[in-house]
């Protein structure tokens, strides 16, 4: 018996494809890019980083990262914050 996708399945496929475009986002390389990718992309696409560049200072990037931890509940270990902020400042920040 042939199973046709019902409307619900079709909807969920469409919903999934809505976010498929984010795989096209390129982040700068560098030692910490994998760390940044894995932490930040848990909750949002990485275009948020590129979009907010290059005008945030190191302190401003740190404020953003800590907001994600404190407010949004991102499970980023304290020990990773400096490396993430370094990367964001170097590639997507300003002095």
């Amino acid at each position: 018996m042939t199973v046709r996708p019902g409307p619900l399945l079709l909807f969920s496929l469409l919903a999934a494809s809505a976010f498929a475009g984010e795989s096209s986002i390129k982040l700068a390389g560098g030692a910490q890019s994998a760390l940044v990718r894995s932490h930040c992309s848990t909750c949002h696409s990485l275009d948020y980083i590129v979009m907010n560049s290059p005008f945030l200072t190191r302190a401003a990037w740190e404020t953003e990262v800590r907001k994600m931890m404190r407010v949004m509940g991102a499970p980023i270990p304290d020990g990773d914050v400096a490396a993430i902020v370094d990367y964001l400042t170097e590639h997507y920040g300003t002095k």
Partner: protein
Amino acid sequence: MVASGIVLADAGFGPRRVRAALPPGTVESEALDTLPGKLPLIKRSFRPPNYESPVETFQDVITPNDRFFVRWHLSDIPRIDSGSWRLNVGGDAAARSFELDMDQLRRDYEPVELVAVCQCAGNRRGLSDPHVPGVEWGTGAMGNARRKGARLKDILARADLKKEAVEIAYNGADRGSLEMTPAFVKSIPAWKAMDENTLVAYEMNGAPLPHWNGFPARIVVPGWAATYWMKQVVSIRALSQPLTGFWMNTAYRIPKGKFPIVDRFTSQETEATAPITEILVNSLMTNVADGRRFAAGQPIEIKGIAWDGGFGIRGVEVSIDDGRTWQSATLGENQGRYSFRPWQFACAPRPSGRMSVTARASSAQGTSQPSELIFNAAGYHNNVVQKIVIDVV
């Protein structure tokens, strides 16, 4: 109107000035992208989906559903079946609690229709100088649609509000991808909830709401920033105490005393800040962009829209000499005080050369757009006058 002044060979119509003022990374990461059921919009972020309408969208006074901007805070956005959708009504300041299904919402409450601008509080944030973090919107995080729905006050009447009700809070079905992420919950003052124009809307431009715009029902708060227009609303609670949480206490706040605001949300105010309330008077030129060419010696027609927080548009003035002198534009059809108001300005034929065009709207409340940005750290309420430089050749 005859568009005889327009050099049709100029295909370079686009929001070039806007692009020039956005952060470089915003321009680098933007893309025209098509969400299911939508026409291509300018993608600012994929997940959660934040998409704005290209400027030419606003040549229509009513924004079509498939071109209407999309803005979500959280990325788990369920597909809702209207048959199983329920709206839970209650709260500590309601004497009764109950649940409504879509048939009851449509059948048991008098339907109301109105046209209203839905504008993200952060519309034009990307044009802030200096830049501030957030979704870096250009001019298209807004739309104007005809809404149909039940009055929130009629629904609250059945809940039998107690006299101590101070705010009405509501939650949508969306969630963050982590358990820890706070739900996007908002409240409005009880007086605003009782306004006859505040709706639980189930139609948009005569059709069901698009999924991305809150199907099957969203709160509509005409005149106020879209942060209060809860999408996929599933619960409404009458509160005797102010709602707390990040989305009320920290986000969507403006410095007190900086903006010409009339509507107050006193239960949420602190000494320094207040929640954003009504939209400030603003305008957008919709048929011109920097570098657009017009023929010398021919009439030049400038078209646009103007809107405000529900006081109504008193007038729009246009300057072609960097603001030294202003002439009145002609206002178009009035679809109500919460709607975009179209306008047009016929400029007498000009010799060749560069020409700057500035538009400035005034509201019936007596305020008009400022000539300098009123800077604030969250990039809200950007209603500084636009200037576009065109070429007459």
